[in-house]
């Protein structure tokens, strides 16, 4: 009897360790990849960014430590491929990302709400709602865009969807400040680009909406809530965690599509200034982490982020 018990206990412990070892083996490829393709490149990028890099004839690299010279060059003397100051590009990109993120998130929430409503032809709407996952691919966007010459269709449509007329209307009949009007008309004319980036977000929101239990809505209705209250008091609070996820996802996606990455390549391989390019990489990375930090801080004020259930 005693013997059996100890044997069982021994087996138990060994099973757990065995499991841990096996689990570790399962993660091992990813860990190796993390070391090879993230940690080492990161360390190298930091080293390059602090030195003048020359490629030797034989294929090796020559590194001369120059301190923060690359960073000074990056912000003072270097220009981008279309002769703009780097600071200018960074500021522009950040403004673009910070204005577009809320727009995309709100639009995708709206689209998901429509896709979740009960009506005839909902299936068709859903098919179309997720099309931006495909149509928003960078290749597709750049291929479909009209690149040379005038755009006949858009010119002729111009009379129908006159963005100018919206601008005139706002200027004439509302008392909004000029900046806001400018922003509104810009948004209206860029709506197709914004929407093309909302596919995955809509999908995530729709899944979130479907996971909300219908009984909550029933209770609220019995208590006398109208549709407006249902949205603000039931739907939105229950979507808060998903919203955080969607906001972070959108921000990262927008950063991936920004022009900064082209500039990095441009510096490193077209101008052969690997040091300056690496400095820009580091700046770029800190920029995105900083933006995420700010966003999470803002959202912490509004949303009760529940890391516990998510992780």
């Amino acid at each position, binding site marked *: 009897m005693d013997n059996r018990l100890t044997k069982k206990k021994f087996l138990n412990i060994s099973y757990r360790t065995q*499991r*841990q070892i*096996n*689990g*570790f083996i399962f993660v091992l*490829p*990813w*860990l190796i*990849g993390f070391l*090879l*393709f*993230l940690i*080492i*490149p*990161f360390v*190298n*990028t930091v080293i*390059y960014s602090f030195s003048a890099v020359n490629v030797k004839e034989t*294929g090796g690299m020559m590194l001369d430590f120059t301190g923060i010279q690359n960073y000074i060059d990056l912000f003072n003397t270097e220009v981008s491929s279309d002769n703009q100051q780097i600071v200018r590009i960074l500021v522009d990109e950040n403004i673009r990302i910070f204005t577009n993120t809320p727009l995309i998130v709100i639009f995708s929430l709206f*689209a998901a709400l*429509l896709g979740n409503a009960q*009506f005839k032809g909902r*299936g068709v709407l859903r*098919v*179309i*709602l*997720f*099309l931006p*996952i495909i149509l928003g*691919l960078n*290749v*597709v966007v750049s*291929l*479909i865009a009209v*690149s040379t*010459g005038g755009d*006949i*269709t*858009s010119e*002729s449509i111009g009379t129908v969807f006159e963005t100018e007329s919206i601008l005139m209307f706002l200027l004439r009949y509302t008392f909004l400040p000029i900046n806001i009007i400018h922003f509104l008309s810009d948004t209206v004319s860029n*709506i197709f680009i914004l929407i093309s980036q909302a596919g995955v977000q809509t*999908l995530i929101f*729709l*899944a*979130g909406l479907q*996971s909300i239990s219908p009984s909550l809505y029933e209770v609220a209705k019995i208590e006398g809530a109208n549709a407006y209250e249902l949205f603000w008091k039931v739907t939105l609070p229950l979507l808060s965690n*998903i919203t955080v996820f969607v906001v972070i996802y959108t921000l*990262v996606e927008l950063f*991936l599509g920004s022009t900064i*990455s082209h500039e*990095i*390549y441009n510096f490193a391989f077209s101008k052969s200034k*690997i040091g300056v390019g*690496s400095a820009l*990489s580091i700046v*770029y990375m800190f920029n*995105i*982490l900083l933006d*995420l930090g700010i966003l999470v801080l803002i959202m912490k004020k509004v949303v009760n982020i529940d890391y516990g259930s998510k*992780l």
Partner: protein
Amino acid sequence: MAVNYKSYATAYFLKKRVLKFVSDVFFYSLVVGLCFVILYPLIKTLPLVFNSIGDLGNPDIVWIPIRPSVVSFRAAIRLVYGNGLIMLQTLLYVAVIMVIQVFMSAMSGYALARIKFFGSNLILYLVILTFLIPPQSMLISQYLRFKHFDIFGIMTMLSGGPLDLINKQGTLFILAIFGFGVNQSLFVFIFRQFFKGMPIELEEAAFLDGCGFYRTYFNIMLPNALPAIMTVAVLSFVWNYGDTYLTGYFHPQGPYLANVLTQTFMPARAEFTLKAIGIWYNEPSVNTFAFDAVKQAAALLYLIPLLITYFFAQGKLVENIERVGIVG
């Protein structure tokens, strides 16, 4: 005076019906408007693509071509697609990468979800961090690393010098195997969330019935993770098919449709393309609109496999994402 209840009732129902009608009109116009806005970029290409080359740029022809033709498609096929081999090569590559990505991320995701070992939480945070750091910021160092690839001098010992892995398809597979394909950390996270939500009893039952670790995983857990597998597979397929970053920098001369299309239809090559179209199809008056027409025809052809996959998968997609539980 007798009150005419009947007319009251009619008025009530009439009011209800009118209200319903009005709200329906608003709702459907919203829905139709939304669909239109999403589809507009596609719709806009149609008149251009089906116009004959000579009629392009004619201000009288906007939506309906007078002489419909498929010359643009023929030009696109001749310029890029050839006999369709490149499409097959791309699809094959994407399929292989998709399988690798699903397999590897499912393994990591399962281990991170179910097995507590030293540092497993730290690894999870690293996965999330990896998703947040744009791969482009590592571009230079990764590029140079692959250009002179060497792990602790082993390669130099074996083959007498560092390997040049740039411009080899294997590089892309290596990246995917080690978890750094397109958006792969997101896939790991999706799998992790899914396995976290699966009932622990499944594993316990398998253990009691005498399944080892690997048998439990491959026979019990993986087949039950079909929703997560499908979601990741669809996303991986779409993103890899449209990827120009990894393929463009690490295998620039490879047969990848997205890359070839971007290179063929660079604005710098417009002149050449126009001349080619003019000579091939005997069109004396080729203007810059023809370039756009051919480009968009190529884009539409490029979209076909994506759309087919998408129409088969989309019905399941929402349901699956919900069961996967990215949403927390």
